[in-house]
């Protein structure tokens, strides 16, 4: 599972940090850092974080194109 955060939208509300602290981290007051490849066992936490983000900045999904036969 991969994530990407639209940091233009993110306002550093930190809900995601509370819900999945192994994946999201605030660097200083407002700069969000996250692990793009969700570590094992964190899927549930990440889905909850994504749903809780007040500005819907977090996209969660499988690696794009991962399902296709890549030439």
């Amino acid at each position: 599972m991969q994530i990407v955060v639209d940091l233009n939208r993110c306002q550093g509300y930190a809900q995601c940090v509370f819900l999945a602290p192994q994946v999201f981290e605030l660097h200083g007051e407002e700069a969000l850092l996250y692990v793009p490849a969700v570590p094992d066992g964190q899927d549930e936490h990440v889905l909850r974080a994504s749903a809780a983000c007040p500005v819907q900045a977090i996209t969660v999904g499988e690696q794009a194109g991962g399902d296709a036969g890549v030439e």
Partner: protein
Amino acid sequence: MSSETRDGRRDGRIVIVGASLAGLRAAETLRDEGFEGELTLVGDEPRLPYDRPPLSKQVLLGKAGAEDCGLPGRRALDARWRLGVSATGLDPAGKSVVLADGERLPFDRLLIATGTRARPWPVPGEAALEGVFTVRTSDDADRLATALDAGPRRVLVIGAGFTGSEVASACRERGLEVTVAERGRAPLIGALGGTVGDWATKLQRAHGVDLRCGVTVTALKGSGGRLTGAEFSDGSRLEADVAVVCLGAVRNTEWLADSGLAAGPRGVACDAGCRVFTMYGIVTDDVFVAGDVARFPHPLFEYQLIALEHWGNAVAQAEVAAHNMVSPGPLRRPHLAVPSFWSSQFGLSVKSVGVPTFSDQVVIAQGSPEDRRLVAVYGYRGRITAAVTVNRAKWLEHYQRLIETAAPFPPGPGAADRLADLEPVPSDVPDPRVLTHGPTVALTGHLPDRRLTLIRPGG
């Protein structure tokens, strides 16, 4: 030949060249909007789409691996992926893309999303020294992170734009000595102007960066194929075992040289609906462009063609281009999103809306040059054109509204604004030629193509 259906343009063959952020989001939007035909994505990198912003942030900080930055898909695509092969030409009359392995991909509609690449160090022999890096691709970032892990005695960053500043920030956070060399007067000056640039100067120095502005690196020195240091235009020398070349980006348009399209070093010119112009300034209806490689007219910025190296622009423009590729004329949309950008460096979130370089004046509405927070508002001929915040992101929406409504500049004080200092000063946007780093927003005027000279009558 054409297999367009009456209700729109839902079938046929669409080829997307460039399989990164813009290419991917366009492909997903095409399917979302009901495109049922053949979809092919061509990318010269051997990888599935990945996200670049973490490469100079999480990856250099050692918080994520370079190979872990893959982009999540928003939906299933049912597409053919041709990865690890570049497009080498476009035959607009025969409507096909030519690939490096000789394959010809016929299309009904084409999307150009070939983005940019890192501008290399200009002396190939020096660029090839072990220890000299750029940061654009996943492999670049992987190699640089490995070099930083080895604990170099000093890192030299050449160019203090966003990428260079983020690299310097990561080095300091790792406790590495770092020197930043910038030909302009201050870091970030090309994107944010001199007033905010001066603030960035203080920030970098406060974090222990050996910042040298107003100088250029004249030579990289090596011994036994390894970098040992650099020489500067002021005659000084520096020992360094890693150099990171952050000279800005080069647009990937060479493959379009003989296509007859308005494609050149400044990008691929298009109309507000992402339709590409020919070199004669005539709009095509089957070739579209999106992302870092596009130059498009924006009404908020006097319809000048602007090129933005911004993540948000790549996504928004890809969505508009894809929508227009499958929509009949009256249902098409213009790409009018207000540009926005973020960076994080030295533990701060730096964000902008609008185009700060499209300005003549700036006011510091909140914070002061000493603070670790700031709101700077930019104006051009009496209206607001941009705002930059540092750790004050929640204010951007407010200023975005003012930009969209062409509100007067200087702004009336907002609730949290400091009244005393709303004194506009020149925004001090330099001529891009005096910079080491390229600006991340290029205002490129009205000329659609480098090969034509347009003579405008005076007055």
